[in-house]
């Protein structure tokens, strides 16, 4: 899933200062699951903006609404009336949703209300971790299902660096060393010899390094 975190309220309040009719638009997918931009957060954010503006002596109309999936054009029609009625939209969807909104409602401004942080998973209640960088050439088969690109702070391909201690990454004692986990899992399956081969430099051209990516499938195109 895509994980995000709501922007500080002050930042959102400042961003909507010039506007009079504000719609806070939640998304029903990933950001609902990670409790950053679902219906509940959209209502809270709308209320916070409304209270702040009243306090500042510039009361304003703030509504909230949630769209099932903001990252697809076909879902965006559902909110057309409310959307067109507003001066500005604060989207609590991920960065993809915000851009889909801006493309679909091109005469309106849709501002980001959350910081999209990573692709990852809910690890424990209240804890999300990054697992994949979408490198475009998955190597999970070679690393026992643990991603060395996303879970090693240095995206190394050939084993742990010299900063790995007690299972933790040198970057922070709060972060597991991805390579420690890979080595442990290889040992568990008696496959440590898989690390003997010197992996060549990665071809990053399939990642974002190759420029913004686009996937075209002729077989499913209309």
């Amino acid at each position, binding site marked *: 899933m895509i994980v995000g975190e709501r922007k500080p309220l002050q930042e959102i309040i400042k961003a909507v200062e010039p506007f009079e009719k504000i719609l806070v638009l939640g998304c029903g997918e990933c950001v609902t699951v990670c409790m950053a931009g679902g219906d509940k957060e959209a209502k809270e954010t709308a209320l916070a903006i409304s209270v702040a503006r009243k306090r500042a002596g510039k009361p304003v109309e703030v509504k909230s609404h949630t769209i099932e999936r903001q990252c697809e054009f076909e879902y965006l029609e559902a909110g057309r009336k409310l959307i067109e009625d507003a001066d500005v939209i604060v989207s609590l969807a991920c960065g993809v949703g915000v851009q889909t909104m801006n493309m679909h409602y091109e005469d309106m401004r849709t501002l980001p209300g959350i910081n999209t942080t990573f692709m990852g998973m809910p690890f424990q209640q209240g804890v999300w971790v990054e697992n994949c960088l979408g490198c475009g050439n998955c190597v999970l088969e070679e690393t026992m299902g643990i991603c060395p690109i996303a879970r090693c702070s240095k*995206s190394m*391909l050939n084993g742990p660096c010299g*900063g790995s201690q007690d299972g933790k990454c040198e970057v922070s004692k709060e972060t597991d*060393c991805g390579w420690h986990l890979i*080595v442990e899992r290889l040992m568990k399956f008696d496959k440590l010899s898989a690390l003997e081969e*010197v992996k060549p430099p990665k071809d990053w051209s399939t990642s974002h390094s190759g420029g913004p990516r686009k996937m075209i499938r002729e077989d499913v195109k209309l």
Partner: protein
Amino acid sequence: MTMSNLQKVLNSGAFVVTGELGPPKSAEREKIEHHGHLLGGVVDAVNLTDNQTAIVRTSSIACGKILVDMDIDPVIQITCRDRNRIAIQSDVLGAVALGIKNILCLQGDHANFGNEPAAKNVNDLDSMNLIRSLKNMRDEQVFIGGEKLEAPIDIFIGAVENPFADPFEYRAYRLAKKVEAGVDFIQTQAIFDMDRFERWMAKVRELGIHKKVPILAGVIPIKSLGAARYMKNNVSGMIVPDEIIDRIKAAENKKEEGVKLCVEMIKHLKTIEGVAGVHLMAVAWEEIVPEIVERAGLLPRPKFD
């Protein structure tokens, strides 16, 4: 092809001593030369760190050139943190053109340790495939992308290994992998936990790696109690046992105790099978190096024409 001094001393079978020079956070050539004067003659080659702990300093290659001009054999460090493969290969060619031969491949401390924590960490290559890539540039005259170099280059490729990092059981295998990748010499992380180092060396010998590559054991003279504590708590991948801290703490003359400890360690390391020399990292205490090398009985250094 001509050999670097480091290569010659290693080939001669003599116990090697290398030193380390931390480039300044300035462009003061005199400072680099001053430290060069302190180290030249008492060590066989001098490492130039590459923005160590992710702190911006003068370029290791520029400092290497200054040492070349002083007739001191430099070992320039190259990390994967700050440069992609285009820049690294270009810098290697530049270094060779400036008369530098010894290149040490490192991954590099993460930028969040340093004075530019907002920097983008590059890590296009990793230290392992950097070694292999440099070997291919030298032995096959080929760049990573497959294009040919226009003329051969002559480099002596080093790498580091850290017996104090985890998973411990994997560390000797990682060294074997660096040999497989094509490394010519190894420097270890600074040793304070001698027991763990010996366990690692036993595994290295069991795998026969010490016969394939010379290993220089890293040592740091402790200058003060604060320095010892700092290394224990703040330097990634280092183990400083409490006995060492206590010994420095109990000593009246802490500097002298630090030197004594360092000399004892070097003398001990010399007796360990498979240790080809020591790499003395007295950064910010370069002036103590001649005394340590002397007291460890390693002077004079061998000379070759």
